[in-house]
């Protein structure tokens, strides 16, 4: 596929100029006439029953227009997650918009709408709530013990779910092994730290129809979930598509309290109501699930894996939400599918605690898994003297193999071998010193991690949406509008989707623009999650563009008196193949199609034919035929200061088979941003809570530390391998999440190489390093 004109080029993203001069399009800027401002009153207790709420003093405050308490809201039990049908049998529903039982510190118990945010805030202090405090539990292992506080009625030992799967006989597999390795790996609760706060404005009309503007990463998910929680049909909710939102990384994929409460407050006051999170509210809204993974691997002397066993304990927090789903993706695509073994078994436990809600975060359970798997492989190779590259290649699938998740799919384009070999060569892996052999107080080391199997969306997952739609409309000036319900959360997907449309239509990139819409006039699209948009939405865009092009060429064929099959489009010009002089611009053909039936020219009125009449459009609503796996390997060089415990990342080499690079600059941006989040996960980020009250102690950026420009390496090298995936648009498959799955284990392995100490829990802080070196 060498004759691509637009795909494969680093075209400038379409929203960049708008964003550098002010960024008008963010939902945080939405303001409507007569708009009220809402605030939520949150519980100071992690577990309590509300005995009474007295709002009379708050209601008397001038400027207060409405106060909501549990008795004012529908008591419909829902799950907030967007990517499954609201009424799915497979989903765990256990939340209320406002409940008389509080299960985490900071859970909303009441809400106010007032003429200003300051008045609403003041009104909160005038609401009198009488709580009956209940015993709380924050440690998932404590929560499972007999006699632990019951968080949800009837859920024995707070165990929400105990999924498991396996193949063969794992005990037999360990008997066949020459060596068995076993370890426990723990990861912490971290926050996505999107920069634009969650915000929404709801506007309810006299018929009760809700129009909502929200910083959300899934328009149709918000429509369906909001309608469900309010007991309304979906047709009573319209979600407006913002041109872009200020980051998500998974966090903006479930119904937030603000959306439900703004809709209810708007319905009550008949005015638009805006709610915006404070940064504290963002921090306690959702976070990556902390997990404890026990991993056991049996290996033969020749490096063949005979058996793999794992168990995972997942703290799903006060509510189920993503917990029962994230643990399945974690188990299949994080822990088990990447490395072959004839005998496997996995057992999971999802436990309620009185902690803040868990959520989606880029990688969805896989970073927790990769830390365990890739650390243990490093331990195996170190102990048995295997080359870590060759060991991985020996136990992973190859191009053309059946997909380990669904053997009906093939690994069509798949080049993990190239990721490993090219990355190793660029890093100088062959010159890696023996672990712990560095001299001096500042010790350098290199490490690597791979992730053999990951997703491009959710095709094949039970009860998870995956189809996408697109509409392409051609304009009389020869340009095209693309409409798609996917949300650009920052990755630049609106630009890459326009590149795919331009390529298929035969237009210049500048001629295609993404035109935002809403849930009334756009076809359904699944969320911006699961690394799916380029592959899945891109596929739908390509189908819609091909449809529009077919219609365009049919009109051109009439006007040009040629066969449509003989025509081609390039750079906005339609010509007869092999006879470039017989050409007409796309603009002229569209003008003809959009013209009045009788066209008046110099020679008087001339009738056109009915067949050439009508707006030239293309439309699609499709799901991709498979779920293509990317392949990835990352190599990092670190320097550990053994006096201070500080770890500096000196260099990263990231090799990723993404099928086809649609926009190289945007792709590099995904890698570089993923590394920032990965360094934070590996070395510094951890949400902390008061052990008695459960209150979040890291609820702003002064206390929650993420990497700044200073902590990032100046050398981040990307190697993109184009295996040309047969099921992807122009051969493309996924990129985003893998960029954050591999950094933490690669860094942990590099630290081991530098100082000879293995860490089994994240983050690897200076304190942990100094303690391990016997200096604390």
């Amino acid at each position, binding site marked *: 596929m060498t004759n691509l004109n637009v795909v494969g080029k680093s075209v400038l*993203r379409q929203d960049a100029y708008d964003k*550098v001069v002010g960024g008008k399009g963010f939902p945080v800027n939405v303001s409507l006439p007569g708009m009220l401002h809402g605030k939520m009153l949150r519980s100071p207790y992690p577990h309590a029953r509300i005995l009474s709420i007295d709002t009379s003093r708050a209601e008397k405050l001038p400027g207060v227009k409405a106060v909501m308490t549990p008795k004012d809201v529908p008591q419909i039990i829902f799950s907030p997650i967007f990517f499954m049908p609201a009424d799915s049998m497979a989903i765990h529903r256990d939340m209320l918009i406002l409940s008389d039982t509080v299960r985490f510190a900071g859970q909303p118990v009441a809400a106010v709408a007032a003429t200003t945010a300051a008045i609403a805030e003041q009104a909160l202090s005038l609401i009198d709530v009488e709580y009956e405090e209940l015993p709380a539990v924050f440690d998932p292992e404590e929560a499972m013990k007999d006699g632990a506080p019951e968080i949800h009625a009837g859920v024995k030992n707070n165990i929400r779910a105990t999924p498991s799967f396996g193949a063969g006989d794992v005990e037999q597999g360990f008997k066949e092994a020459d060596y068995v390795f076993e370890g426990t790996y723990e990861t912490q609760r971290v926050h996505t730290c*999107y*920069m*634009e706060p969650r915000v929404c404005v709801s506007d309810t009309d006299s018929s009760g129809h809700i129009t909502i503007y929200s910083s959300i990463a899934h328009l149709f998910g918000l429509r369906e979930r909001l309608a469900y929680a309010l007991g309304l049909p979906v047709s009573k909710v319209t979600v407006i598509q913002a041109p872009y939102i200020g980051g998500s990384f998974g966090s903006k994929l479930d119904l937030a309290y603000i959306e439900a409460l703004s809709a209810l407050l708007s319905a009550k006051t008949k005015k638009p109501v805006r709610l915006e999170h404070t*940064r504290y509210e963002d921090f306690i809204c959702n976070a990556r699930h902390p997990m404890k993974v026990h991993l056991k691997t049996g290996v033969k002397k020749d490096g063949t894996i005979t058996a793999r066993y794992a168990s995972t304990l997942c703290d799903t927090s006060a509510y189920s939400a993503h917990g029962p789903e994230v643990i399945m993706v974690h188990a299949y695509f994080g822990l088990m599918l990447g490395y072959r073994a004839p005998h496997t078994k996995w057992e999971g436990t999802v436990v309620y605690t009185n902690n803040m809600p868990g959520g989606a975060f880029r990688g969805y359970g896989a970073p927790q898994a990769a830390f365990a798997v890739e650390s243990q492989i490093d331990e195996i190779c170190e102990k048995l003297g295997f080359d870590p590259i060759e060991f991985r290649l020996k136990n992973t699938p190859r191009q053309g193999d059946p997909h380990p998740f669904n053997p009906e799919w093939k690994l069509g384009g798949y080049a993990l071998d190239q990721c490993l070999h090219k990355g190793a060569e660029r890093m100088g892996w062959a010159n890696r010193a023996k672990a712990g052999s560095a001299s001096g107080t500042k010790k350098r080391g290199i490490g690597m991690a791979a992730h053999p199997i990951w997703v491009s969306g959710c095709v094949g997952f039970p009860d998870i949406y995956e189809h996408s739609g697109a509409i392409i409309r051609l304009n009389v000036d020869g340009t095209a509008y693309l409409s798609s319900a996917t949300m650009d959360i920052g990755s630049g997907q609106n630009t890459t989707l326009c590149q795919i449309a331009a390529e298929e239509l035969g237009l210049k990139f500048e001629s295609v623009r993404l035109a935002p819409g809403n849930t009334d006039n756009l076809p359904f699209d699944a969320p911006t999650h699961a690394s799916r948009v380029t592959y899945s939405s891109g596929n739908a865009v390509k189908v819609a563009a091909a449809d529009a092009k077919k219609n365009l060429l049919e009109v051109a064929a009439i006007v040009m008196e040629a066969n449509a099959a003989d025509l081609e489009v390039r750079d906005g010009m339609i010509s007869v193949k092999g006879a470039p002089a017989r050409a007409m611009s796309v603009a002229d053909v569209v003008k003809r199609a959009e013209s009045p039936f009788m066209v008046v020219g110099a020679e008087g009125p001339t009738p056109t034919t009915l067949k050439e009449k009508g707006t030239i459009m293309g439309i699609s609503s499709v799901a991709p035929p498979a779920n293509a796996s990317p392949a990835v390997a990352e190599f990092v060089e670190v320097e550990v200061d053994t006096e201070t415990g500080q770890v500096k990342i000196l260099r990263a080499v990231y090799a990723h088979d993404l099928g086809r690079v649609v926009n190289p600059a945007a792709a590099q941006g995904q890698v570089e*941003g993923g590394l920032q989040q990965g360094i934070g996960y590996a070395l510094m980020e951890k949400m902390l809570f008061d052990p008695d009250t459960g209150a979040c102690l890291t609820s702003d*950026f002064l206390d929650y530390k993420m990497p700044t420009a*200073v902590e990032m390496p100046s050398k*981040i090298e990307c190697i993109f391998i184009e295996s040309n995936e047969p099921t992807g648009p122009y051969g493309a498959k996924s990129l985003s999440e893998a960029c954050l799955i591999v950094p933490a284990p690669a860094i942990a392995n590099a630290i081991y190489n530098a100082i000879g100490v293995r860490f089994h829990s994240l983050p690897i802080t200076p304190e942990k390093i100094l303690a391990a070196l016997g200096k604390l």
Partner: protein
Amino acid sequence: MKQLISLEVNGDVHEIAVEADATLLSVLRDNLELIGTKRGCDSGGCGCCTVHVDGKAMYSCMMYAVSAQGRKITTIEGLGTEERIDPMQEAFVKEGAVQCGYCTCGMIMTAKQLLHDNPHPSEDEIRHGIAGNLCRCTGYHKIVEAIKTAAGNGLPHMKGQ
């Protein structure tokens, strides 16, 4: 109790009634509708709200509006528009330093200050210079490249732009 203040923003003088505890950020956004200045944390932790006050980059969430009286304030809207773009804004676009874009305006205001104080910074000086501005999308790599470009020591093809 509100008080009337006079604020000079981007060369225009505004008479505004503000609460004594209103931050410069809230007045810029809510009263003057200069929405290029973003609220990210309201606690001096992220840098999204960075503006210039008397030519110095400041977190506008950490300054009372009443304290900004008699001082010259410049926001991103005063730095450049799409028609008359500032070279720093252009460099951010061309180097791919913009992803979600929420931190971008604050980052550009800080970067302008950095080059004003130090026209030819080393990469290390750039990284320390923007360490008070957080970005969660880019890993800062292309932001650093954009600032190098704007300083005239970046990619050869960008020189002179």
